[in-house]
Each structure stands twice: as structure tokens, then as C-alpha cells.
């Protein structure tokens, strides 16, 4: 009896366990092994073991650190902006009024468009010669704006495009959070004499903290992995000013075929994401527990 009891769970778990090993664990060890070797896909030479040389190279490679910095700037910038826009809209739309359902549905549309289409679409809209927005600005104010000419402008443009695409995510999660809050504390605070701002500051924000933390974390992690937007809008340019880590990894690995170096970067990247995830999850869960 006891033997069977122990045998069956393992038996039932086996298929998914094998699946996990094949698609998760094996590739991970393959990449780990690769990162300790020099291996270029275009060379006839097989793998040659070089120890930590790939990592050592990365530590002293400005372009690598530049991409780390760009990734963080992009992730912090876009997530924060999306949070602000999404939360403001959620607060506004949490109240009942006519046509609320339609407005909510419309707001979610950007999220449904494939990212590559979003990138291309905005690339056209912001194009210095044929773009609608630069033309509009020029005809109204007379100022010529180039959205992709300087590094700062290009990064800002990317953040704005990402915000356009992703604010509905923040909006939906935060709206769901707002609507699941109990009504009574708000009524109590209202009768206690709190103003709208005081209710927001003392009641809404603290009660929403766990939801905010989770939404911010999720989108931040998604932002760290940004690739499609960079590829379709700026291809990392001008220069390397919008080159994020995932884009650099793609370039090194599949444009220049430096497989070992790419593998090392991918692992550093992974640990970076795990680090952020651990920090945020701990913060979010503790916030919820308190």
C-alpha cells in the first residue's frame, strides 16, 4: 500500500518532469557549457575550452555595459510611465458612467496588436519624412522634431511607443485590483471626513500596494526582455544608444555567430532578471502579507 502510494505520484509526474528536463534543464546546461568555450559558427574549428574568458571579456566590454544600462533605462522608464497612465485611467474608469464598457474595450486594443506591427506602425508614424506626427508638429509649431536622430530622443520614443502598447496591461490589472477592494473602508473614510485626495493617499494607495507591486514587477520583467520593439523601430541605433541586452545578444550570436560569448551574455542576463524578480516578489509578497 505505502509503496504504491509513493510510486503513483511519481509516475503521474513523470511525463511533465521529462518535458521540463528536455525543454528547460538540458538547454540550460548546454548554454552553460557553451559559455565556457570559444565557438564560432562560421569557423571550422570545434569548441575550444577557454574557462571564464568569455565572462572576463564581457566585464571589460563597454558595449555590453552600455546595453545593460539601456535595458534598465528602458524598463524603468516604460514601466513607470505605463503605471502612471494605467493607474490614472483605472482610477478614472473605476467609477460608473455611461459608455464605460465601450471605453474600456477601446483602451485595450493596443495590447491586442502584435508587437512587430506596433513597432512598424510607429516607425512610420514618427518617420522624419513621411511620418504623421513630425508633420503635425511642424505645421502647428514650425519646429522640426526628429524622433530617432539622437540617442536620448530615440530612447524616449521607444519608451513612449512601449507605453502606448502596454499601458492597457497596467490599466486592466489595476482596474481589477481597484474593483476588488472592499467598499466599506472608503465609505467609512468619507463619513470620517476625508477629502478625495486624503482617501486616495490614506486608503486607496495602501490597499492597492500589493496589486501595484505585482503589476509593476510583471511589466518590469517583460520590459527587461524587450527585443521586438528595438528590432523593428531602431535596430539599436543611432549607434548603440538604444541597444538593449537582448538585442546585443541576438547580434553577437546570430549576426556575428559568436556562440560562446552570446551564451555567457545570456546567462548574465538571466541572473539579472532573476535578481530583480526575487527583489520584487519578496517586496510584493511582504506587502500583501502586511
Amino acid at each position: 500500500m505505502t509503496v504504491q502510494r509513493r510510486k503513483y505520484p511519481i509516475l503521474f509526474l513523470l511525463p511533465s518532469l521529462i518535458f521540463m528536463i528536455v525543454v528547460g534543464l538540458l538547454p540550460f546546461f548546454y548554454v552553460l557549457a557553451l559559455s565556457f568555450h570559444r565557438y564560432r559558427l562560421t569557423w571550422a574549428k570545434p569548441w575550444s575550452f577557454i574557462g571564464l574568458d568569455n565572462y572576463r571579456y564581457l566585464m571589460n566590454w563597454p558595449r555590453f555595459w552600455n546595453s545593460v544600462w539601456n535595458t534598465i533605462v528602458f524598463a524603468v522608464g516604460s514601466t513607470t510611465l505605463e503605471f502612471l497612465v494605467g493607474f490614472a485611467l483605472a482610477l478614472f474608469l473605476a467609477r460608473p458612467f455611461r459608455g464605460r464598457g465601450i471605453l474600456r474595450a477601446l483602451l485595450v486594443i493596443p495590447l491586442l496588436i502584435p508587437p512587430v506591427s506596433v513597432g512598424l506602425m510607429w516607425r512610420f508614424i514618427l518617420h522624419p519624412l513621411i511620418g504623421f506626427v513630425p508633420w503635425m508638429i511642424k505645421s502647428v509649431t514650425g519646429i522640426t522634431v526628429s524622433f530617432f536622430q539622437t540617442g536620448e530622443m530615440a530612447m524616449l520614443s521607444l519608451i513612449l511607443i512601449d507605453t502606448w502598447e502596454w499601458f492597457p496591461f497596467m490599466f486592466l490589472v489595476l482596474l481589477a485590483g481597484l474593483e476588488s477592494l472592499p467598499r466599506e473602508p472608503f465609505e467609512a473614510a468619507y463619513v470620517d471626513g476625508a477629502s478625495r485626495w486624503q482617501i486616495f493617499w490614506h486608503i486607496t494607495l495602501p490597499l492597492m500596494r500589493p496589486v501595484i507591486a505585482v503589476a509593476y514587477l510583471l511589466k518590469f520583467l517583460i520590459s527587461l526582455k524587450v527585443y521586438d520593439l528595438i528590432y523593428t523601430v531602431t535596430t539599436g541605433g543611432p549607434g548603440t544608444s538604444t541597444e538593449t541586452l537582448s538585442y546585443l545578444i541576438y547580434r553577437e550570436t546570430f549576426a556575428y555567430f559568436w556562440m560562446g560569448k552570446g551564451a555567457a551574455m545570456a546567462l548574465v542576463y538571466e541572473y539579472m532578471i532573476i535578481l530583480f524578480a526575487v527583489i520584487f516578489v519578496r517586496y510584493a509578497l511582504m506587502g500583501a502579507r502586511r
Partner: protein
Amino acid sequence: MADVKLVNLTKIFESRGERVVAVDHINLYVKDREFLVLLGPSGCGKTTTLRMIAGLEVPTEGEIYIGDKLVNDLHPKDRDVSMVFQNYALYPHLTVFDNIAFPLKIRKYPKEEIRRRVEEVAELLRIKHLLGRKPKELSGGEQQRVALGRAIVRRPKVFLMDEPLSNLDAKLRILMRAELKKLQKELGVTTIYVTHDQVEAMTMADRIAVMNEGRLMQVGTPQELFNRPANIFVAGFIGAPPMNFFECEVKEYEDGYYFESEVFKYRISEALGKLVSRLGISRVIMGIRPHDVKVSRGPIENSIKAETYVVEPLGTETILDFKLGANIVKAVVPPTMRIEPGEEVWLVFEEDRLHIFDKKTGKSIYVLAGSEEH
């Protein structure tokens, strides 16, 4: 301190073309320092009335005065009322101290005074040892006290309480009933208290306002409501077990006046008969409280024969159910009276214990006779 006056207060909810009159032209005066209970079945509009006074609902029509001030358009902050909610509505992220301090904090009281007043209130409610805890870590009774503390800490003009005891277990509820009443008298704050529990209303109120279907049925002291219910609704709602009702026709014979139902003929006094006929009432509802039904083992004059149906001994008294035609009549008798199910008895209704209502309007004939005099 202040009195509260409701003038023609009306609330109509409209959604998807459906109109619901929740509160229908209520006129009510609550005296300064009074404990007034709004009593009625669920959906009668009592909570909506309370929420309008609190400022949580906007009246469709009518006026609300607190003191001499018309408060219809005032923010709750300027009405100076405080409310205790049915499920306490504590701020889950704040400690007990901060919960109680909240109304003072948002009014920017000095820190030192906040601390002093919170501790004072905590002392009064015996929750001083809980000040550092979060609401989640408290029992229902303790949360109840914190909610009360938050209501009294800023010494408002009026307390509004929305079934504050209904989430407590029966034993604690009885305990808190007495405590709440004592507290209200000590603080001397005008209180409007909503409940559907008539026992709660009877035991706590200075006066009770009974509501049904958005309308005010009767306002009076518990004794007035019990002894002289103004209509069938109040008569049936107050008192346990509820009053017995019989539909009767008023008949005048050579030997006097009678109330005739399908199963009995009950002789009434000349004076009562004349009163009823003067009022032009042909059909009445005759009511008598179970405690007022006299049970006799043998036939006596003007008594009604009935068959014992159920016997419920409660220890201090016994509730008897009798079959009278298709009706069930309840009587409460001393436990010493031993009657078996199936036994035939004779019921005596003493005339001065009867409550008589006009079948058409449901109003008490005493109210009708009274209004005739004016």
C-alpha cells in the same frame, strides 16, 4: 450636540428604466441626545435613510437638518456625523490606534492631542491592550469596539449605526446591547440606530421608528408601539411570538354587537360596537397578543372552542398552538398549565386586550377614532 430633522425625505433609485422608491416622503424628528432606532424588515429603506443622513446617498427629494443646519449639500466632513458600519469597515492596513486616530489625523489635530484622545477612548472601550494590532488579529467583538472607538473619538454631533451588532454571536450581541446603550447615555450623543431585530430595538431605543416599504409606519416609545400599534404592520412586527390576527365582520343583533369570523362569533361591548359602526367599518382585523390569550379547560361565557395542536415548553413559559378553523392561534401560558396536544380548550379574549384594525386601511381604530376627534 444636536437634533436631527428629516422633512419629506425621499430616495428613488433608477437603473435600466426601473424605478425603485426606497424611501418615500419620510418626516421624522430625532431629539437631542435621543437614542432612536429605525426598525423594519430588510429592504424597507432604513439603511438608505441612514446613508442619506451620513451623506453617502443623495436624497431625491426632501431635506435633512442637523441642528438648525440644512445639510443636504454638505460634505460628510461638515455634517459632523460618524457612522458605524454593519461589517465595521475598519482600515485593514492600519493598526487599531491608527484606525481610531484616522478621523482626527485627517483633520490635522496635533499629534499629542490625537494620542491623548485615542487612549482615552481605548480606555473607555477597554481596548487599550489592542492598540498596536491590525484589524485582522482581532475577534469580531474587538473589531466592533474599534469601530465604535473610531466613531466616538471625534465627539460628533450624531452617531449613525447600521446594524452594528448583527455580525456578533448571540451571546455577545446581548452583552453589547446593554453596553452600547450605557455608552450612548454617558456620551449623550444623538444616535440613530438601524436594525431589523425588534428585540434589539425594544431593549435599546428611547423611541422606535418603524419603517415598511419606504414609508414610516409609526414612531413612538417601545411601550407605545407594543401597547398601541397604529396599524397591522407594526402590530405584527413587534412582539414575539407575533400577534394573532382574525378577520371578522361587524354584526349588530338584537342582543348587541358581534365580531363574526368564519369559525367564531365573539360578542363585543356596546361602546366598542358603536365606535366601530360610527367609523363606518364593516370588516375588521382583530388582533390579540399570545400573552393575552386566556386558556380555559371548560366552556365559559363568550369563549371560543379550539383544539390544541402543538405544545412548546420553554421552561419559564409554554407556547401553545391551537387550531381554529384554518387558523393557528398562539397562546403563552405559565408552565404549570399542562395541556396535551389534541385536547379541547376554550379561549378567552378580553376586550381591553384586543387590537382592532380597519380591514381596508390596516389602521388601528383607536388611531382613526383619535384623528376623528381633532
